[in-house]
Every structure is written in structure tokens, then in C-alpha cells.
């Protein structure tokens, strides 16, 4: 039930991010969701894209450092309180979130959230969320957004 995310190492300098997004754009890769986490030296760019394998290939060929990892994608209604519902379910289920970010899809009334949990926690988290009535989205769903 996991979704593939690609993370790319970017140096904290002018143009560092553009180099990555330019390379992906030129390769016709569509970015569905994006988040950046940074220190004073570098940043981690995390992306959900339409073709993660191609994106990883493009990145590596361009000399970038990247990694593909499994993350959880959950959906909720696009209305106040829906993210809160997801977070509160994760908290109640003692699922440790490393990071999370949200995005919207066009022409839909759903808001999506990407959640990074420990690899060993993944199955339990999916089960728990489903039991609590939260929609967990799979790779194919995300591709079709």
C-alpha cells in the first residue's frame, strides 16, 4: 500500500533546486507533490512524481544523489478538520511520523497527505488507518491523479 517517493540531495546555494527541477522538467516528469527540508548546508527535496523510476534514472545520470523510498499516502475530504482527523488517527495509533506534507489533486474534492513512517511500521500504520476509516491511497491511485 505504499507510494514511491524520490528524495534528492540539494546543496543550499542559489540554483541548487532549479538544477533538479530543470532536469526533471526536461525529461517530461510531472511533479505531483513536493517538500523541502533543509539545514544550513543542504536540503532534502522530496517528490512524488508520475514516473519515479525514470526520475531516479534522470537524477543519477545528472550526477545527483537520490533515493527512492516508500511513504504512506492518505486521502481526506478537502474541508476543515480533515488533516486533523488523519493526524489524530496516526497519533492515537502511536505511529511515529518522521515527516509529512500535503497536496491537492486537480478536479477532486480530496486533500492528500504524504506521511513518512518507519519501514517496519508501514503495514501496521496502513492497517490502523484503514480500521479508523481513513483512506489510504496506493501507487496506482497517485499516478492517476
Amino acid at each position, binding site marked *: 500500500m505504499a507510494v514511491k517517493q524520490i528524495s534528492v*540531495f540539494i*546543496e543550499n546555494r542559489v540554483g541548487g533546486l532549479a538544477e533538479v527541477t530543470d532536469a526533471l522538467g526536461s525529461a517530461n516528469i510531472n511533479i505531483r507533490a513536493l517538500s523541502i527540508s533543509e*539545514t544550513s548546508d*543542504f536540503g*532534502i527535496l*522530496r517528490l512524488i512524481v508520475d514516473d519515479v523510476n525514470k526520475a531516479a534514472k534522470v537524477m543519477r545520470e545528472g550526477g545527483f*544523489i537520490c*533515493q527512492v523510498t516508500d511513504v504512506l499516502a492518505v486521502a481526506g475530504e478537502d474541508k476543515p478538520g480533515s488533516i486533523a482527523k488523519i493526524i489524530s488517527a496516526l497519533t492515537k495509533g502511536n505511529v511515529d511520523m*518522521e*515527516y509529512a506534507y500535503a497536496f491537492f489533486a486537480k478536479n477532486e474534492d480530496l486533500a492528500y497527505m504524504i506521511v513518512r513512517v518507519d519501514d517496519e511500521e508501514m503495514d501496521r500504520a496502513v492497517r490502523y488507518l484503514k480500521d479508523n476509516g481513513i483512506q489510504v491511497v496506493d501507487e496506482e491511485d497517485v499516478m492517476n491523479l
Partner: protein
Amino acid sequence: MGKFYDEEMETLPADKLRALQSERLVKQVKRVWDNVPYYRKKMEAKGVTPDDIKGIEDLHKLPFMTKDDLRDAYPYGLLACDRKDVVRIHSTSGTTGKRVVAFYTQNDIDLWDNCCARALTAAGADEGDIVQVSYGYGLFTGGMGLHGGSTKLGCMTVPISSGNTERQIQFMTDLEASILCCTPSYAAYLAESINEQGMRDKIKLKAGIFGAEAWTEEMRADIEKKLGIKAYDIYGLTELSGPGVAYECEAQKGMHINEDHFIAEIINPKTQEVIPDNEKGELVFTSLTKEAFPLLRYRTKDLCVLNREKCSCGRTFVRMHKPMGRSDDMLIIRGVNVFPSQIETVLLKEGMPPNYQIIVDRVNNTDTFDINVEMTEDMFSDRMSKISEKEGHLMAALKTMLGIQAKVHLVAPKTIERSEGKAVRVIDKRKLY
């Protein structure tokens, strides 16, 4: 004419000094030949026996010693006395992480203390002085070296060691310390803090002895002005004893080498030929009186000039210029010897490619030490916590190897500057020489 600690030696006429050096050299060569197989092998390889060394004029026949020899013979291979006669060791970092360990008999300590007492006297100290020793104590020779000299001279010695600036200033003012011994960068830092706290009028310092790292005349002027003292340079290396191999007098025009204990030569580092005084080359020392760890023709890798002109202070010992650079790639950062190869060793051990760049600078008179390391797929993660963990692990491994903290920066692959294909390993922005 100033005061002397050992007037007879410090003002010994040139011919008598040469005779004394010759006599001590002959004895020392025989001693290492008899006691140290490593030396014997080296001399045999060069076809020299103690019979060939009749005086200082034969010094050039002896083989050179380098840090590599110290590494090869580590730990006890160069010990020239019984282990039971050794009373102390000191240590410094070596080229590939193996440390250099130097041994001392009680007599070695006494002579070293004498050398430091000479340095303190030349800086105007006597038994009425209160000496604050703010060099680090421990394996580093700075603290215990000046401590020994100060105690020998009969000064009230404050073994405060380095760090804890507030306490330093408190002792300095409360006890009315008159002589400060520490690294020049720490002296500059203390001077800054004292002035910031408006304590300048409360301190009673009259002089300082600052060594173990390179400093400029501008830095000296700055420290002297901010603390209202005379600032003296001191030179030494663990391999020979520690601080006090050479020291500055009131003329502040170069450091007098304690020639009754050390013979200094200047060589061309490429051809290894001895070159005349007043020409720049690599400083080479022979320790004449060391019992436990005598070194013959030890290449310091410090580039320097010797000056035999008569000094206004009355000392006859030759003067060495402040080191003017290195003939190897060793850096001295916050008083600690750092070899780029040590960083390479750590990276390889941590399973990382040895792509790094050292950036050293001096900000507010304190050395900054940064290491750029190229990120790898192995180290990278989508989780910041994992990267920080690995980064922390790398920094700890570097600290263990180098003895000082470096700030690690992870940079993109292939971004470390390469000049003509060869990576530029060191960028030293300090203007020290």
C-alpha cells in the same frame, strides 16, 4: 643587557659553544648507536659509524629522521634508555593518525624545565612573578612545559590550563597574574574578552609567552596593545621536548635556540643539502642532551631562516625566525597538528570516498576548521535524522583522529574544487606567514 636564567650557557662564546656541541654530539651518537637498533640500522645503511662523528663538522654525515621514522618505530622503537627510567610521555598527532609519543627521563624533564625557565626569564620573569599557564595540560606539551619552567624559576604557578574564559579572567585579576602563557589565538581571545568586560584596568599582566601556533607581527601588536603587555614568541615541538627549544628575548627579533641542547641546521627540503645561515630552508634539529628520546637530524618541516648576528640582549645563541611555512602539508589549527591524510583515513574507514576539502580561517583571532565532504548515496537518506546521525558519527570519528572538532559540511558530489583534475584539499585563508 637583560637578565639570564643560565648566564654562562646563554652567553657562551661561539667557539666554546661549538666545542660543547661537538663533545655532546659525539656522546649522543654513540649512545643511540649502542641503545637504539633503529638508529644503528639507519646509520649502517648510510655507511656511518660513531667513529666517523668526531665533532659538529661531521653532523652532515648522519642520516635524517622524519615523522615517518617516528611512525615506523612507534611506540618504543626509538627509546634510548630503560623503560624504568622513563618518568613521563607526551604525545602529538602523526601523519596517518598514529600518534607520536615522546619519552622523558627525569633528567630530560629537568633540562626541558630549564629551557622554559630561560624563556620565562627572557620575557622578564623572576621568582616574584605569578605565572598563569593557560596552555592545555595533558599529552600536549604546552601546559606542563611552561608549568615546569615556571616552577623551576620559583614563580607562583597557576596551572589553570586552557578554556573557561570567565575563570581565566577571574584568576588573572584576583591573583594578580603577571605573566600569561598560552597560544597566541587564545591570548587574543582573552584580550578581547577582558576589554569587552571593561576589566583592562584590573589586570596586572606585564608579559605573555605565546606559542604552539603561527602568529603574525600584527597579531602581536594587537595583543600587546589590548593587554598592555610585551608578547613573546616561543618555539618547540614534542619530538624534541616541547616549548622552549627556542625563545624570544627582549629584542623580540627572532627566537634564540637553546644551542647547548639542540643543534639547528637549515636544509634545502628538496636536495636535503645544508644551506647557509640567512637563507630560507627547512629547520633540522639534533637533540644533544635528551636521554629517553634523542633525535638526530630531525626534519621539522618548518621553513625558517637562522640569524647568527649578535643580539642586543647579550645571548650568543643563534636566532631562528618565526617559522615561515611548512615543507609538508601539515596544518596547525588551534595549536593542534592536522594532516590532510588523517581526514582521508577517517573517510575511508567510514566507507566514504575520500573527497574532502579543508577550509581553515581565522575569525576573531580564533581558527575556524571546516571540512567539506561530498555526499554519497550511502550516506544520503530522505530522513534528516538519518543524515544527521551519520554526520554526527563522522564528526566524532574525525574528532577522535584529529583531537580537535571540525565542522563537517555535506556538499554535492563532484563539487569540491579540482585544479587540473587534482582535488584542492586545503584552503588556508589565514595569512600567517
